[in-house]
């Protein structure tokens, strides 16, 4: 058989059951991505004789004698196919993992398909962009701008990796092959709670190609937390790499290491595990009750009350809420539930480990290689200098990769065997074992005077941390921001993070603020209706204003400051936008139309220790090398860092070479989460660039004898009074004296600023079917000083789209035994192109940030007001309040019927 790929013949033979995607990747075509492995996401799209197909569900042998075209064959850097150029110039991507598939699909479109993109693109999922940018790309709308020297900030310059992304050359975690690489697959627990009585490895070890079968007895007996923070003490040490007790369906039991994935899978199937099944508990309130099954012992003093499965309890107040409620004219109380939802980044978790010169190397899909390194050093008792952790481009994160859940097993097997080891999550593993958002039940009680002034504000939060406590504590503290947004002399916050026999919850965009925002913003809407006050007006009367303290959990010194009334401006902008479209026609007589709004406020960096270091060096080729630990996974920090450096150094982005996310090549960086990639690391970049600029200018001043204040950078020259000195001349002169223009600077996540936003929706609800259609979506956000307008817009659009998925379409179904029944994209429906409305993005240009150049990170806060704004619009349209997410048609229709008997036709 002969396989013709991109015009080149291959004589390799695929395995009988191999899919075309794996075969093409094995031949070196790594642009063909594995997203879902089931034909649902389209990231693996290639052409067979010119027709686009999903290569993961195409038997490899079917390509025999036919011509295969992959993204690499469509065009190359410098010689782009027109569709690749359009995706670069729109820009039509963020993380870039879906991009090859998007391009290989779009490049085949007929005019009719271009006119119906929702249908034409239904087989291509993007989790980052919200699809507007992809629509622009397909239609040839360009957003990328060029930048003059020193003027990069504020321009929509393209991502440094843009051409590599659109040509499939950008390397993601799994896009490599190492000689002798072994593969690891894991046998997962079928029980929600069980003790492992025995493990019989013999049949598994007899499988040809199986090298090792690991059990809990083979791993270091060290407890740790998989959660990533600089200070590991903010999370409990309650997890082992492998344990003799399993606490959720899907927990690792036996990793099998083999020459091939197939042999490792067979080894898993042949391993015999005897369990003693223990009683399980899935709901936090039941887990807290007397006599409930106890999940954990009391080994870690962090755990507040192991007998009642309480990881952490918070009870704080200011003022006197009882007095505040006594003073109120109207009191509203409601209990609101936000369910478990999944990040669904298109690149699954995965790590590849190997030994090189006696050092462990780990290539991984993480939001923080620096902290992953710290954890691996601890787990395996390695000196930090014997270990390197790095990331190539990462295919989406959204908080899911703020967790060390794949690196440890790859490292274990490599340290044991000395061989390269690959451990890649399947899509099902993502749903059943990776850390989703914490389900939270919040009871909000609000008291207000007749004029709307809040007199009492009480929140009770019961959070389900799942089987382990990673992020369980910090997300509980984060809930305070939903309390902080409103001024009130009497506040009370009681919160519980509770262990249950469910998949461990973790970090997800919005981090513990999204669920309280749903509760508080829904409650504020209900209060407004009870008071007969416009919901936006009620917010105006109560939001924190410059000069007010930001009081959430306690009234004490803090490091957060704001001095501008940005939230009020956001509210005004949304009100204006909704008013402009108030006469939008209803889709028809069967549809009920309503509007809803919600606001949120978010600190621009995490409250825990956050550190980043940047190095800037002017190289002999007059390119500035910028080294910073921040990972790029679509959040756009690489572009922003380059822009900041180019701006400070008076040059263009083309003369900044970025080195990133590699513990051997960059300084420490806590990680890209909690909006810190811009706010903290950006400050490190700014300071390092400033330091190098100052060294160059000082040298130039001495060199020319012109006073420093008369010297300035101008791309490849330094202006010194009337003279222009080429940088090359200064570098040569400095080198001769043994001087290099280089500097390192650190930045910390303190002091902090706040950002805020308001979301508005007008929706139509079908009175019979319960279907929701979004007629208008608008978000106003305090974007402060914008580094890259296209990226800011993209982050907000993507966050709103993800929020719409969490609120309207995504549903994590778990059966009575704690087993997830829909662990795939076919049945866990993240939004497709057709599901996402275009969102009008309106920006408030505040100047009160202490971030780099007074900027604020925009990737996170945007998601928080989406669900409550939808629920409030749903109430406005139907008169029915929904206090539980998701707002799916089958949940809506029945309550509409309860409210109003709707005839389905004459005679009924």
């Amino acid at each position, binding site marked *: 058989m002969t396989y013709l790929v991109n015009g080149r013949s291959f004589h390799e033979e695929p395995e009988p059951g191999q899919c075309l995607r794996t075969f093409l990747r094995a031949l070196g075509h790594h642009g063909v991505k594995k997203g879902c*492995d089931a034909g649902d996401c389209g990231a693996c799209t290639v052409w067979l004789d010119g027709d686009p197909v999903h290569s993961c569900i195409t038997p490899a042998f079917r390509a025999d004698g036919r011509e295969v075209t992959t993204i690499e064959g469509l065009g190359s850097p410098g010689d782009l196919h027109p569709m690749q150029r359009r995706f670069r110039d729109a820009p039509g991507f963020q993380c870039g993992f879906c991009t090859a598939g998007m391009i290989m699909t779009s490049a085949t479109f007929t005019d009719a398909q271009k006119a119906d993109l929702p249908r034409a693109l239904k087989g291509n999922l993007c989790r980052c962009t919200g699809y507007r940018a992809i629509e622009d790309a397909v239609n040839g709308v360009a957003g990328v701008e060029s930048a003059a020297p020193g003027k990069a900030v504020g321009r929509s310059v393209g991502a440094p990796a843009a051409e590599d992304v659109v040509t499939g050359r950008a390397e993601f975690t799994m896009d490599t092959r190492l000689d002798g690489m072994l593969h690891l697959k894991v046998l997962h627990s079928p029980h929600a709670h069980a003790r492992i009585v025995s493990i019989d490895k013999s049949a598994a070890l007899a499988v040809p190609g199986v090298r090792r079968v690991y059990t809990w007895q083979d791993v270091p007996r060290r407890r740790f937390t998989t959660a990533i923070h600089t200070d590991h003490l903010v999370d409990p040490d309650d997890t082992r790499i492998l344990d003799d007790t399993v606490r959720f369906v899907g927990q690792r039991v036996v990793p099998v290491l083999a020459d091939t994935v197939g042999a490792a899978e067979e080894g898993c199937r042949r391993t015999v595990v005897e369990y003693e099944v223990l009683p399980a508990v899935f709901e936090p309130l039941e887990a807290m009750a007397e006599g409930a099954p106890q999940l954990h012992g009391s080994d870690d003093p962090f755990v507040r009350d192991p007998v009642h499965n309480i990881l952490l309890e918070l009870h704080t107040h200011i003022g006197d809420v009882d007095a505040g409620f006594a003073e109120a004219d109207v009191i509203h109380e409601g209990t609101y539930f936000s369910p478990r939802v999944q990040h669904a980044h298109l690149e699954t978790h995965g790590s590849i480990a190997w030994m090189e010169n006696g050092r462990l190397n780990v290539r991984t899909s993480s939001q923080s290689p620096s902290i992953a390194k710290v954890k691996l050093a601890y787990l395996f008792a390695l000196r930090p200098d014997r270990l390197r952790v790095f990331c190539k481009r990462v295919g989406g994160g959204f908080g899911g990769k703020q967790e060390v859940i794949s690196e440890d097993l790859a490292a274990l097997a490599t340290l044991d065997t000395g061989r390269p080891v690959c451990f890649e999550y399947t899509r099902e593993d993502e749903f059943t074992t990776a850390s989703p958002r914490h389900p939270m039940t919040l009871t909000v009680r609000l008291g207000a005077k007749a004029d709307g002034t809040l007199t009492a504000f009480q929140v009770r939060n019961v959070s389900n941390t799942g089987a382990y406590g990673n992020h369980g504590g910090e997300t509980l503290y984060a809930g305070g921001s939903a309390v902080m947004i409103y001024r009130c002399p009497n506040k009370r916050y009681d919160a519980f993070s509770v262990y249950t026999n469910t998949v461990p919850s973790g970090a997800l965009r919005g981090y513990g603020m999204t669920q309280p925002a749903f509760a508080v913003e829904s409650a504020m809407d209900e209060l407004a209706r009870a008071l007969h006050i416009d919901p936006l007006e009620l917010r105006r009367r109560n939001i924190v204003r410059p000069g007010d303290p930001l009081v959430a959990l306690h009234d004490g010194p803090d490091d957060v400051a704001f001095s501008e009334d940005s939230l009020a401006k956001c509210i005004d902008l949304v009100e204006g936008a909704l008013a402009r479209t108030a006469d939008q026609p209803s889709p028809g007589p069967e549809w009920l139309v309503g509007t809803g709004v919600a606001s949120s406020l978010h600190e621009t960096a995490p409250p825990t220790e956050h550190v980043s270091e940047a190095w800037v060096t002017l190289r002999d080729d007059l390119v500035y090398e910028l080294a910073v630990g921040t990972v790029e996974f679509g959040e756009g920090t690489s572009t922003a860092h380059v822009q900041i450096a180019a701006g400070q150094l008076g040059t263009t982005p083309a003369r900044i070479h970025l080195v990133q996310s590699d513990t051997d090549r960059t300084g420490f960086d806590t990680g890209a989460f909690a909006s810190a990639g811009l706010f903290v690391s950006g400050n490190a970049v700014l300071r390092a660039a400033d330091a190098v600029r100052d060294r160059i200018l000082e040298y130039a001043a001495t060199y020319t004898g012109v006073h420093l204040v008369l010297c300035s950078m101008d791309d490849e020259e330094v202006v010194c009074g009337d003279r222009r000195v080429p940088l090359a001349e200064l570098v040569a002169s400095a080198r001769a004296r043994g001087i290099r223009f280089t500097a390192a600077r650190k930045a910390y996540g303190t002091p902090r600023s706040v950002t805020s936003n308001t979301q508005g929706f007008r929706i139509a609800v079908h009175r019979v079917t319960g279907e929701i259609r979004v007629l208008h979506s608008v978000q106003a956000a305090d974007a402060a000083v914008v580094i890259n307008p296209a990226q800011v817009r993209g982050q907000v659009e993507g966050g709103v789209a993800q929020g719409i998925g969490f609120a309207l379409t995504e549903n994590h179904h778990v059966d009575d035994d704690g087993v997830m029944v829909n662990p795939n994209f*076919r049945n866990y429906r993240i939004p497709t192109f057709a599901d996402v409305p275009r969102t009008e993005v309106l920006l408030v240009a505040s100047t009160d940030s202490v971030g780099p150049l007074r900027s604020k990170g925009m990737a996170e806060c945007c998601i928080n007001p989406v669900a409550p704004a939808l629920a409030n619009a749903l109430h406005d349209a139907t008169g029915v309040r929904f206090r539980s997410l998701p707002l799916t048609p089958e949940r809506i229709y*029945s309550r509409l019927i309860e409210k109003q008997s709707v005839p389905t036709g004459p005679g009924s």
Partner: protein
Amino acid sequence: MDLNTITEIVRRPSGRPGTEWREGDAWLAGGTWLFSAEQPDLRRLVDLTALHWDPLVASDAGLEIGATCTIRDLYAFTPPGDWIAGPLLARGCEALLSSFKVWNAATVGGNICLSLPAGPMITLTVALEARYDLWAPDGSTRVVDALEFVTGDHRNVLAPGEILRRVVIPARALRKRAAHRRFTLTRLGRSTVFLIGTRTPGTDDLLLTVTAGTTRPVRMAFDGPPDARTLRQSIDAVPADVWFADPNGTPGHRRHLTRHFAEEIRRELTAGT
């Protein structure tokens, strides 16, 4: 995904491949479902597309669809003008959750044999009163009514080794008036309910096919035009356990939607008579 337990592909099966059937075999058509899920019990795939069955044969008697006819070919088919139900063929394709790319390989027979409640090729062929030609491993053949083929979620009447060879749609069904309604929880998603009503021009009959919301296709046949009450009673007579529960819908919502859309179809098809 890679099906790592597969050790052999039969790429050139005999004209009657059933005789070669053995335990651990699966018939491979487009492969778009087979390769989308783990198949740990399978060892060998037999490629039916190598037999080059005629995809579509239209005649005065009706339409014969070879089981390996791709969705793409069916979608591209232009029915004769007097087959006024002909546009249903394309609507059935559009009811697939999968995109046009998958249609390049996925087959009509594969969708039917997968026997999911939401399989639109089942909806289509039941509504158009098709019969299926089946080939048994011993060389014998049988014909079953499309309505009788699917027996439950992921279940059908095929015996091990039996093959769906072709679908035959009678011309008289294609000459009927047709109306359809479909609901999905997400836009362009998988069907929560998919209903098709047909009516012979010049008569009072009404044939209503209810699928996706039920674990197997349900047909309601009326010789004369039913009133809303009669129709509603027919729907309410469907046994409770036939309404399907899965992530694409709840039984209660599906029954509710079926009542609503069935009434819309009734009114559309009885209008102007």
